[in-house]
């Protein structure tokens, strides 16, 4: 039994780690702007395409850092162009703008690639096959949880112990007061998007090393799932997002192992509805009260 489950468990932890890297981006943006950044999944996909095109043009050790830079830049530009002008608009408008950006990015990627699935380059070491007990898998599977934990710990340190981290916490607690205290909220918000995109870029390298093809809409589903993970863990909480993502990744793959592949996506959303109805603040979320 264990032998049969093990590959799925491994895949679950690995996918969970990749979702976690995306989920952190969602949860940070939501914590500060109260915005579901629908375009985040597409930024993740864009990172995949950046790698496809950069790796074809230059050696990998140049391409990989460039991918990260390009993704971060994309996240930054999206925020400046599509969200910043709407800062004082109702929340619904910003969310619609996010949906619009997602639509635009998907169409743009479709245009650039001609709608064809692209083969993701083989990354040295990460893409190697290894065997753990009875299961054969890729290095990425094993590396992902480690990288995820390392990055998240680094991020938590950043938020707890640096000046920009303190500013982030202040802005997420109270937007206007933070502004009055002299915090440059625009740069704090940009920083949030930069960190989120950075993690998405790393996540995309790990994710696509496992799944090997990139299509313009491939990021939509992991994006939504990562959002569910962020909600599950308690939106705004970074450790919560990671634990939520791990749980979702594992559950999804166990469901596949049991033979209900059709329902592996549906499960995530069912979980979301259950969590939202019974514990809207998620596992680690802060309780907020409605103000008049």
């Amino acid at each position, binding site marked *: 039994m264990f032998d049969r489950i093990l590959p799925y468990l491994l895949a679950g932890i690995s996918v969970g780690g990749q979702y976690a890297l995306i989920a952190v981006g969602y949860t940070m943006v939501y914590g500060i702007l*109260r*915005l*579901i950044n629908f375009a985040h999944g597409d930024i993740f996909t864009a990172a995949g395409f950046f790698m496809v095109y950069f790796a074809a043009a230059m050696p990998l050790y140049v391409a990989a850092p460039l991918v990260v830079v390009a993704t971060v830049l994309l996240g930054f530009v999206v925020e400046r*162009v*599509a969200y910043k*002008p*709407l800062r004082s*608009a109702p*929340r*619904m*408008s910003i*969310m*619609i*703008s996010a*949906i*619009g*950006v*997602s*639509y*635009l990015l*998907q*169409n*743009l990627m*479709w*245009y650039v690639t*001609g*709608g064809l699935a692209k083969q993701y380059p083989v990354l040295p070491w990460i893409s190697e096959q290894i065997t753990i007990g009875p299961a054969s898998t890729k290095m990425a599977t094993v590396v992902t949880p480690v990288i995820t934990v390392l990055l998240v710990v680094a991020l938590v340190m950043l938020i707890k112990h640096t000046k920009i981290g303190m500013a982030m916490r202040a802005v997420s607690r109270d937007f206007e007061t933070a502004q009055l205290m002299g915090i440059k909220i625009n740069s704090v918000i940009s920083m949030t998007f930069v960190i989120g995109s950075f993690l998405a870029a790393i996540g995309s390298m790990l994710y696509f090393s496992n799944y090997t093809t990139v299509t313009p*809409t491939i990021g*939509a589903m992991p994006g*939504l799932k990562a*959002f*569910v993970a962020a*909600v599950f863990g308690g939106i705004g909480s970074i450790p919560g997002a990671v634990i939520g993502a791990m749980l979702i990744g594992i559950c999804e793959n166990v469901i596949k192992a049991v033979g209900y592949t*059709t*329902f592996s*996506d*549906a499960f*995530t*959303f*069912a979980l*979301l*509805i259950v969590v*939202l*109805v019974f514990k*809207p603040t998620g596992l680690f979320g802060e309780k907020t009260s409605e103000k*008049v």
Partner: protein
Amino acid sequence: MKKSTKAAVGTLLVAALFAGVWLAERLAGANSMLVTVLEKGAIYALIAVSMNLLNGFTGLFSLGQAGFMLVGAYTYAIFTIPAARRMAVYQYYQGGIVQFELPCLLAIVLAGVVAAAFAALVGLPVLRLKSDYLAIATLGFAEIIRAVIQYDKLGPLTNGSNLLKTYPTFDTALFPFAVAGVCIAVILMLIHSTYGRACKAIRDDEIAAEAMGINLFRHKLLSFVISSFFAGVGGALLAMYQGTVQANAFKSSMTYEILLIVVIGGMGSVTGSVLASFLFIACSEWWLRFLDVETFIGTVQVPLLRSGFRMVVFSVVIMAVVLFYRRGIMGDREFSLDAIARAFSGKKRKGARAK
């Protein structure tokens, strides 16, 4: 303007519209782009208005429209495939379990009813959530529906992940116009009723509305169910338009498209949604087609023009609307005969809204 003249002019306009559609079909031919746009535009208009009822008039940010359309489309298809052809369509499921067929119009109504029933079930837990949580939960629900419908064990009913086809379709653009027209008229009447006013009050301020004695949950649920009813009807029409249905086409991107139509038309304007639907469909299917074709001027190829460019330009335009013309084409105003009459007579508007 007097009520009787208004009714007369209104009737005339509707008659003229139908005559125009009929004429366009005769002149341009049933397979022309114009007729495609008219048919699809009418269907999208209905769906957009149904979404506007929810998002624009009740202030519930729901993203489940594609799910309810899917339910409607499948209900219609399942109950209208002629019994004689079921063996061929449900070839992997021994002809399926439904062995009768309903008349077309009855099936359309049933499509709405089933979608509404689903909405009532989903709404009970989901509508207690606030703005963006509601959006994500309804989006998730639409994804669940899509997965469940393709579930193999439900195959005898839904044909699993295979196409549903050979059900009756319409052969004139007048049909979707008539159905969508009646439905939109009903929605308009609803909006102008006390019920509609209560919904607008909820949109503008939930707490104040509750204090005025409006039962929030009941009104939200009602609005959700009604919107889903019409989304279901719209789904059935879409199924008729396409000729085949497959669950995988009803992705969340479909909901996004409809939402963008609503935004372009103006949140809270029925006429805006209708106009935007025709505009959206005409642009995406017809007017911007040339952007997808590689074109040469002399021997020089026009740069950028190739497959997919149309959608890029299109989404850039949409982003521009979302960012710079947030009120859309109509804002929350409506096209009304009174306003036009006033514009012609040059009288000053009474009680013009301060803005």
